[in-house]
């Protein structure tokens, strides 16, 4: 077992796959010689060669476009989009093409590609370096959307994504790159090396794509979370001293509905938390599913704790970020409700 940050774990996943399988290529803006603005691909070009890890023009649509062509032609490209906020020029290639190729050709052609991109706020990135656009992708049939919350999962899920025969969008919560983050930005930050989930096996292993992970176990409440919010939820549960299931969903599409339903049927209360803007966020889908499947078990209205329906502001970053205060209030409300 090695100790790895999430950056190292992600890099290691690519390294393992590139070593195993020459069909795996890695490319994107600044990912080659420099190793990516978040260093996730550092060293891969030197190790595997210029033609296996390289820079692309600043053209997200082009990046995903070539990835589709390569994937259809038997390779397993891993494309990086520098920030999820910049994925929209590639939206058409992702939604209309990568996600539809198998269907419209009835399996004649497929697009087994992986798109990695950092999401979420917490680094003073403002409107264009902080977005969490997962809900814009979970609506797209034919696509899978995955989001890890720790180094162990990041590596295992990324290897699964690369090996999957369908296109996978792999969202990386950038605020978790170096350590867990519970939303308290004034606390000194702790690195992954001192966290048990920073323990990452060497070599090849996988984490399955449609399985949630239980972070804490309890009876009074279910909190559904993913990405950075997993750590906000864990902190709130600990600080409030409540007995709660915190589920790290890990995969949003497909979703581990069984785990969700089992937990909510047990607890009767459900809070959903995500960093993305509220309206039409993935929390809406989760809330709908929970009430469809657990209606007769619910003792209080499902609560959504989210970012506001505004762009992600710069100076007001922590007023936007759904931190412990916002979640605590929701938990109190739901626990009080009859």
């Amino acid at each position: 077992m090695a100790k790895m940050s999430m950056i190292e774990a992600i890099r290691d996943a690519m390294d393992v796959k590139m070593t195993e399988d020459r069909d795996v290529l890695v490319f994107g803006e600044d990912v080659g010689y420099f190793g990516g603005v978040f260093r996730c691909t550092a060293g891969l070009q030197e190790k595997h060669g210029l033609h296996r890890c390289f820079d692309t023009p600043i053209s997200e649509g082009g990046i995903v476009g070539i990835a589709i062509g390569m994937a259809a032609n038997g390779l397993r490209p891993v494309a990086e989009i520098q920030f999820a906020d910049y994925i929209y020029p590639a939206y058409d290639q992702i939604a209309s093409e990568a996600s539809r190729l198998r269907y419209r050709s009835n399996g004649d052609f497929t697009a087994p590609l992986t798109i990695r991109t950092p999401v979420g706020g917490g680094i003073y990135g403002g409107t264009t370096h902080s977005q969490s656009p997962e809900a814009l992708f979970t609506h797209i049939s034919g696509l899978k959307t995955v989001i890890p919350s720790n180094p162990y999962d990041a590596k295992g899920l990324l290897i699964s994504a690369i090996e999957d025969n369908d296109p996978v969008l792999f969202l990386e919560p950038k605020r978790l790159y170096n350590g867990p983050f519970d939303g308290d930005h004034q606390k000194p930050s702790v690195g992954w090396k001192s966290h048990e989930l920073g323990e990452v096996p060497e070599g090849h292993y996988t984490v399955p794509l449609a399985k949630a992970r239980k972070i804490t176990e309890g009876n009074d409440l279910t909190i559904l979370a993913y990405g950075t919010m997993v750590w906000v939820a864990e902190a709130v549960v600990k600080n409030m001293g409540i007995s709660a299931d915190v589920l790290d969903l890990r995969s949003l599409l497909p979703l581990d509905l069984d785990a969700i339903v089992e937990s909510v049927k047990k607890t009767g209360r459900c809070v959903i938390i995500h960093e993305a803007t509220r309206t039409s966020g993935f929390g809406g889908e989760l809330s709908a599913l929970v009430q469809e499947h657990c209606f007769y078990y619910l003792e209080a209205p499902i609560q959504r704790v989210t970012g506001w329906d505004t762009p992600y502001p710069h100076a007001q970053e922590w007023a936007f970020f759904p931190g412990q205060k916002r979640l605590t209030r929701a938990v109190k409300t739901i626990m009080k409700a009859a």
Partner: protein
Amino acid sequence: MGQSAENKARAERNLSNQSKLFVPEPQFRPGDTPDYSHISIPTNHSPNRPDPLCDAHDTVEHALKLIRVLRFNGETEGEWKPDLSADKMREGLRHMMRTRAMDERMFTMQRQGKMSFYMKSTGEEAVSVGHAMALRDDDMTFPTYRQQGILIARGASMKEMMCQVLSNSGDPLDGKSIPVLYSFKKHGFFSISGNLATQLIQGVGWAMAEAYKNTDGIASVFTGEGATAEGDFHYALNFASTYRAPCIINVVNNQWAISSFQGIAAGRGETFAARGTGYGLATLRVDGNDMLAVYAATKWAAERARNGGGATIIEHYTYRKEGHSTSDDPSKYRPENEGDVWPFGDPVERLKNHLIHIEEWTQEKHDALAEELKKEVRETFKAAEAMGSVANSTQLPDNTMFEQVYETEPDHLLRQREMFKGEIG
């Protein structure tokens, strides 16, 4: 400007009808008598034929000229004349005629309600057939909906094609896609997208994969002139240039994009081939109604790509003789006879004339072939129709719609399958 000044300016604009905004218009509209005498058809036809591995810069002039081989009198001329046997030319003629015969029949059948939609390639058969014949059969093509000639030239089953447009039980796509959005991997024919231009950059990616795998395969990608305005066109040219991808980028300039004339996409650009100049790509412009010229230009570009010379953009200059699709009525926006007076003639006629000129063909044989193909098409269609159509039943089970969304059906789709089962009782 303050609010009141703005209001005043607006009021003034509302009074005047002056505007300097320029909007391009075609020369001729319904009611006009089209006159194309200004389009010069050079008698000594074409620019020179440089070495296929020349510097891209050596083809700058080619982007502004027009490669031609077939003269109207049946003669051939110029450096680009390909080395094609009479047999091969007759084969090309047959492919073009077969494509046209199928298009004709499908159009009529659509009008009779047998299928929801159809798109003809009439007048543009030389582009797809000439191009396909100059490629290797395993070179992957990324066509638009107007290159069915590639499938015909590569020997795809016409019945399978017809079943696709009928969306019936013989449709390899199980009715998932609308008519003419074929996918035939086995014939090097990429699944056609309904979204214009998207496949251009995918084809470049395919070509990069060929280079990566160290094969000598190439990719050939297509767009209409109208769709060159999409970002994907730019991506394709740019990435092809940066990574020297072994591919051919074809712009089929058939003068029309539904109701918009080519000037809307071209703007003040002189030609579509010239778009490649600034990217350092080789650029050719070819008479798209001249099958031999299309063949020759494609051969050149394929040789260049296969030997590491990188990508070529080819503009195929042609004319869309019919409506955009069965949903379109071109008489609403262009003169009815524009196609007839189009100065570059008909690709079938031109190759026929050449073959007759060199005494390898006769009008009688031509008529007989046309008759034979008509019959073949009619009979093939009958067999295809027996497998279903939207007119009565497609004979396709509805729940194939849940298949091939993913490799394996995830839980939520299985649940929806169940819901659907409940619904149909």
